[in-house]
């Protein structure tokens, strides 16, 4: 009798581990192994000899500094711009005017579009003979021969274009987080603010924003994590190397250079490690800020 009780409770104790085991195995095999391989492989040459050449190459790569600058500049500026716009939009939706539901629906449409499709759309739009100039002409903002050259390829206009396109594509997902945060906020807290003498602006500044602090941090960090990985939209608009970022260099070396010269695999690995380290530190920061570490074992 005792042994039976024993075996039953062992199974019961083991059940969650058995259920979670496939995930761990899968992660170990297809995630942990590549990660270790990346860290380890970056220090070897093609013959399996230890070398620092890969990292030396990266740090001497004329594109590397540019990539670092572009990556962080675009990430910081676009996240800032996107946050301001997303916050404004969520305030707008939160007014709950008639048709707010339809507006929310429209505002979230870009979330559904694949980024490659968004790139195709904007590439067609920003061409000098594209639809954006046509549209500006139709509404009378430019003359027929006053077409704006969006894609001149000069550095700052290009960065500007990239930030606009990126913003168009990702503001909705940021907005959704903020809208959710605002909806979960107790209306009465704000109403109390009005009763005790607050104006719209002071209530926003002193009550809404402080209460939304954790939502805002979440939205910002999640955005920064993906903004740092920006590359495809740039590559699709301007090709490789025109406006290099860390990830675009990674893909460029592994996809464009390595087939001809396998040593570029090793160099791309070094890029991988750098990207991984930067982003994991932000992820860990995020987990810390979001309080995930603090939750109790039984929580």
């Amino acid at each position, binding site marked *: *009798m005792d042994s039976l009780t024993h075996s*039953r409770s062992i199974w*019961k104790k083991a059940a969650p581990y058995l259920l979670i085991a496939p995930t761990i195995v899968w992660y170990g095999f297809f995630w942990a192994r590549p990660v270790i391989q990346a860290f380890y492989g970056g220090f070897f040459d093609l013959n399996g000899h230890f070398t620092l050449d890969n990292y030396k190459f990266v740090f001497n790569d004329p594109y590397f500094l540019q990539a670092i600058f572009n990556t962080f500049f675009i990430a910081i500026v676009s996240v800032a711009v996107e946050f301001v716009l997303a916050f404004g939009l969520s305030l707008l939706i939160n007014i709950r005017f008639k048709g707010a539901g339809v507006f929310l629906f429209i505002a979230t449409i870009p979330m559904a579009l694949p980024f490659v499709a968004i790139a195709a759309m904007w590439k067609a739009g920003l061409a000098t003979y594209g639809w954006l100039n046509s549209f500006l002409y139709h509404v009378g903002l430019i003359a027929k021969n006053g077409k704006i050259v969006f894609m001149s390829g000069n550095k700052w206009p290009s960065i500007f274009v990239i930030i606009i396109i990126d913003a168009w594509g990702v503001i909705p997902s940021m907005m959704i987080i903020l809208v959710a945060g605002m909806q979960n906020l107790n209306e009465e807290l704000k109403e109390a603010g009005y009763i005790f003498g607050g104006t719209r602006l002071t209530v926003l500044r002193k009550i809404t924003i402080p209460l939304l602090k954790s939502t805002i941090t979440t939205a910002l960090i999640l955005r920064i994590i993906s903004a740092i990985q920006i590359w495809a939209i740039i590559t699709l608009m301007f090709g490789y190397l025109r406006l290099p970022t860390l990830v675009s260099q990674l893909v460029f070396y592994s996809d464009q250079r390595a087939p001809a010269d396998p040593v570029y695999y090793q160099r791309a690995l070094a890029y991988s490690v750098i990207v991984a380290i930067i982003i994991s530190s932000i992820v860990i920061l995020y987990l810390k800020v979001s309080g995930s570490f603090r939750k109790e074992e039984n929580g």
Partner: protein
Amino acid sequence: MADLKLENLSKRFSRKVWGVKKMDLSVKDKEFLVLLGPSGCGKTTTLRLIAGLEEATTGNILIDGVDITDTPPRKRDISMVFQSYAVWPHMTVYDNIAFALRFKHLSKAEIDSIVTETADMVKIDNLVKRYPDQLSGGQRQRVALARALAVKPKIFLMDEPLSNLDAKLRVVMRTELRAIHQQTKATTVFVTHDQSEAMSMADRIVIMKDGVIVQIGSPDDVYFKSTNVFVAGFIGMPPTNFFTVEIIHEGTDIVLKHPFFELKLDNERKSMLYDYSKRSLTFGIRPEDITITSEKNNLLKERALVVEPQGSLQIIALKIDDKIVKLVSAREHTVFPGDMLFLTFKQNKLHFFDIDTGERIGDL
């Protein structure tokens, strides 16, 4: 029908937390037994142990003398009504009731007749084709009941089945549950934290606290012969009033001395304290046992603080020695806040408790 026995049953959740601690209990055939206690007292854990939803840490559970401690729930010949009803939302009422029957390899006609019969018994025969989300809370509760009745179990378990109903329906269902019990004669273990529910329904009440049984007895037993301060305070609404008093021996007399009154005991009361040697004790007196009297033979006087009219009765609260004391009196003459009241206690309704342990003193 069957009897149920719990022997030395324990459930330990973690090193420090015991759900149920070394519990011995036997439920007689056809009995309606109520487990009563405040939340966290282990009453629901006990029920879940009987159901097999929790595994016992130690001890045994026997139905008709057969040990079922390690039997999975489905083979225990029990059925259960859950607090949240747990009516499956993706099945019709009919399918909910027939669920268990379909595992019993009965013919379609047999299932049909049992479902109709039980649905009839709980008066939902016109609802069998509906889905739970088309039903009211009370109707869902009846579905849960029908589902439990349909399997004709040896032991019928109910986990606070009435707590989610509104007050009026709750009282109606009490009567109906009792009626159904009279009809089916199923041994029933009923868990509740509502003492009036327990008093009105139970054959016997088991009062639990911190995973341990405090008292087992008929509703009258637990009310009139509360075994300790906890039970006396828990049972009854408004609760028993407690006074801590000094015991003064004046010759052959015994006087209970309180800063606000001195109570001289009659002979029967004195004999109850015969074996008690401590210098003070706690006594309890129920609100209806404090009487309003005339000025000349009062024990103490105090102004009424709050009066709650309750139809033919009134509940009067007043403050004695900074403690709220409540009494219930008839509305013969209505009392108003601020009125001076002259009070006395019915001596034969005094409950004596040990000052330290809180255990009852005396046999009565």
